[in-house]
């Protein structure tokens, strides 16, 4: 008669088992550390990297602590053991922008961030307890370190010397790590997100940029004019040379013509210079003594003789 009822036992047992299982165990994700306290005392820590926590045993306060590396399922005593979880991944802490003063007394607005992680949750629990509390501490430490280092360099170096700033930040990380060692924290990296000059400076920068560009524009235009002038004058020069050479050549050719003509005349006239003189005189008469000319001649002249027929 009660045969079917034994089937109902199965879910009941399962429910009880799940409850018991949850009471007796806790799970630690691969992304977190866990700290187990019994009556307020830490007695067990589940951590990502045990080697970073071992040192804690030297502290008499934590001498008996059980350190387990890894993640997964762990046992606890219900109601007595309390489990607290801490992020074991790399955390980004974006620090608010702050004004710092460089060695050359320039004010620079720095916006930086830090990468850090909780390496020792036991120490972290007693010193910081929450990430928010750690942020406040980190900000103080990093800011004071930055301030110290930046006070030793000029604004120009801070803004544009990558290698110097990288080295400086590495030093800051080292120094800050020394300070946060006791908090169970490791700072991986500190980086400057932005270095801006205060907004009041912008007007000056814009003014300088403007005048710089005006200078460039002026230079381009003047260069253009310079180049244009060079090209023009070069063209003029070439033109003048071409024309002058042509003039010389033309005169030479003319001279050749003239010389050739003279040679021809001379050759011909030298056959009988006396006759040429006579012939040429007649031509001259013909040309010179045109119409409406008044001629006064001596009665004894050759001309007259001819005129009066050898009187």
């Amino acid at each position, binding site marked *: 008669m009660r045969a*079917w009822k034994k089937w*109902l036992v199965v879910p009941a047992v399962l429910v009880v088992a799940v409850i018991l299982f949850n009471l007796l165990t806790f799970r630690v994700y691969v992304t977190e550390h866990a700290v187990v306290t019994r009556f307020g005392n830490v007695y067990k820590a589940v951590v990502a990297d045990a080697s970073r926590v071992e040192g804690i045993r030297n502290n008499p306060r934590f001498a008996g602590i059980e350190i387990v590396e890894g993640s997964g399922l762990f046992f606890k005593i219900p109601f007595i053991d309390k489990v607290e979880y801490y992020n074991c991944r790399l955390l980004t802490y974006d620090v608010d922008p702050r004004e710092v003063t460089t060695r050359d007394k320039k004010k620079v607005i720095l916006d930086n961030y830090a990468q850090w992680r909780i390496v020792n949750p036991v120490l972290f629990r007693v010193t910081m307890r929450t990430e928010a509390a750690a942020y406040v501490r980190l900000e103080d430490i990093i800011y004071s370190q930055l301030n110290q280092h930046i006070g030793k360099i000029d604004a120009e170096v801070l803004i544009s010397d990558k290698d110097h700033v990288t080295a400086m930040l590495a030093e800051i990380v080292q120094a800050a790590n020394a300070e946060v060692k006791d908090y169970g924290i490791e700072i991986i990296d500190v980086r400057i997100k932005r270095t801006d000059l205060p907004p009041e400076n912008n007007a000056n920068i814009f003014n300088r*940029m403007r005048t710089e560009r005006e200078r460039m*524009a002026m230079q381009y235009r003047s260069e253009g004019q310079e180049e244009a002038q060079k090209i023009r004058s070069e063209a003029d020069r070439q033109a003048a040379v071409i*024309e002058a050479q042509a003039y010389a050549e033309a005169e030479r050719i003319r001279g050749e013509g003239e010389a050739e003509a003279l040679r021809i005349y001379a050759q011909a006239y030298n056959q009988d210079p006396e006759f040429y003189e006579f012939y040429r005189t007649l031509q001259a008469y013909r040309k010179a003594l045109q119409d409406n000319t008044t001629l006064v001649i001596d009665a004894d002249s050759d001309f007259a003789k001819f005129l009066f027929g050898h009187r």
Partner: protein
Amino acid sequence: MDRVINIREIRPDVEAKIKTLVPLVLAVLAALILATGFYTVDSGEEAVVLRFGRHVDTVVTSGLKWRIPLIDKVWKIKVSELRRLEFGFRTVKEGANAQYVEVPQESLMLTGDENLINVETIVQYRIVDIEKYLFLIDKGEEALRAAAEATIRRVIANHPMDAALTENKSGIQQEIRDDLQYIVDRYNLGVMITAVQLQDVYPPDEVDDAFKDVASAREDRAAFINQAETYANEVIPRARGNAAEAINKAEAFKEQRIAQARGDVALFNEILAEYRLGPEVTRTRLYLEVLEEILPGMEVYILDEQGNTIKWLPIGGGMQ
């Protein structure tokens, strides 16, 4: 209505039914629970399986998978997806006519020569190691964003403004990519930076007109030079034309002069030949020919021995 049902009477009947139903229901329930263990991994996705929080498996192949229900947790990530971060602007609407808004407080930055410019950048990345990305970093994208912003500004601050504006954009992109990859590797992000693009680099509004004027000054320079070259192209050929003309004229003169001389000489030679046949006669004839030619148009006065002038009336004229 008056029929009274005695529960006890039908009980054996119900009991039989329950007897068969209960195991069935339990079996179905168990099957349902087991079925919730199925999950799919899409192509391009990878997944890690956590058992009680401990990493037990990484699934890199796509398809239907099974995990222990209620106990195993599966975290999936699209690893093939090309992700992008925008700096200095945000895409409001994607697609054909995409819309953007500028974020000046992000884009305005100092250059190496202490100028201010707006730089809008895209960083493209892919998650290559899902285990690192999920297990080693708390908010991967946030960390990447901070690192990228720092790197972009750092690199821009390391170069003069003109390099970022025009001359060395690709070099700067490459430098940002390399520096960022280095940082990301140090953080063990499991991310590969596939590309960094300087999307838009432009001067601040306050000085924009001065920058535009530089561009137009550059154009002006080219224009001045072009004008001058036009002038040169006009002047030199004209000079060559003038030169050719002058030489041609000279050649013409030369030929003309020689031809003229030859002509003159030819006539003289003819006359000379004639003259040689009878010098006195020809001489007189030539003389008279000239007189004949010129006297008719002239007034001739003859001076006698006493110095008086006698008007000579031309014979030819009188006869005409």
